[in-house]
């Protein structure tokens, strides 16, 4: 419980920092909006959204801080908070809800990206970047979970291979977007090393996949 108390203390301080930041941005936004007679509608909308978002963050942070302070003052409330956050059924529900939701988001984004490619290049590139980001987050969490629950060298190699393959492919895709879609001319000093790095990562990924499958086969033979 001592460790959890420290976590709650850290959370309270983080909440205080968020409140300060939220209030500062909110005040700045209000002042900006008051003097924004000549600003365009879009600028006003963006500033309004930003101000509202930070006010929301500050409000949530205040709620969290109050909860933390109450828990820090009362041992019973601290225990209750610990149980609420570590309850295995609640954690399982969160996992079951999070995984499929992420998959739906990924497929939805992929479809939207595909649709946008027929309509508008800017929207397409924005959605593509968001999709790549979501894919990277999903991959990072899968890798972290696999590494945490695996001790086999084969599985670990396979995970690193996946990371290398995805990073290599992403590097290659970015290079292609920059040069072919955005038509930005890169000097050979830039694109040759980047392309070589991407190629090396993909080759390393293939080598690791072959190696991990060999290790997995050896492990299976050992068990027989």
């Amino acid at each position, binding site marked *: 419980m001592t460790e959890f108390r420290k976590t709650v203390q850290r959370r309270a301080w983080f909440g205080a920092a968020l409140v300060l930041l939220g209030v500062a941005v909110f005040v700045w936004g209000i002042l900006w909006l008051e003097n924004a007679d000549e600003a365009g509608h879009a600028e006003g909308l963006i500033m309004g959204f930003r101000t509202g978002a930070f006010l929301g963050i500050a409000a949530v942070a205040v709620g969290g801080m109050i909860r933390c302070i109450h828990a820090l003052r009362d041992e019973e409330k601290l*225990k209750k908070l*610990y*149980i*609420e956050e570590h*309850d*295995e*059924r*609640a954690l*399982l529900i969160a996992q079951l809800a999070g995984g499929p939701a992420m998959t739906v988001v990924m497929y939805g984004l992929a479809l939207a990206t595909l649709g946008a490619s027929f309509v508008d290049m800017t929207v397409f590139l924005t959605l593509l970047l968001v999709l790549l980001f979501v894919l990277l987050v999903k991959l990072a969490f899968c890798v972290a979970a696999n590494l945490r629950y695996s001790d086999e060298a084969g599985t670990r190699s396979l995970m690193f291979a996946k990371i290398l393959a995805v990073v290599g492919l992403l590097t290659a895709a970015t290079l292609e977007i920059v040069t072919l879609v955005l038509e930005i001319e890169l000097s050979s000093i830039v694109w040759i090393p980047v392309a070589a790095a991407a190629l090396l990562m993909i080759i390393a990924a293939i080598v690791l996949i072959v190696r991990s499958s060999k290790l997995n086969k050896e492990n299976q033979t050992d068990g027989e």
Partner: protein
Amino acid sequence: MEADEIKTKIQELRKLHKLSQEELANAVGVTRQTITSLECEKYTASLVLAYKIATQFGLTIEEVFDFSNVEELGL
């Protein structure tokens, strides 16, 4: 019945020991809802939780949880 639906004697034992769901939940470090779900057989406890509950009643895991369903399926 599926293999992961494990019958339990938690409700019976809890009443025998005159414990409320809240008290048992606090003793084993879960929420009251988890105890309700376990009693209704809507949720299967982890090995650690099963051990904590069994220890709370001074019994073994097999005495609190009925694994005959798993044995029947040959799993």
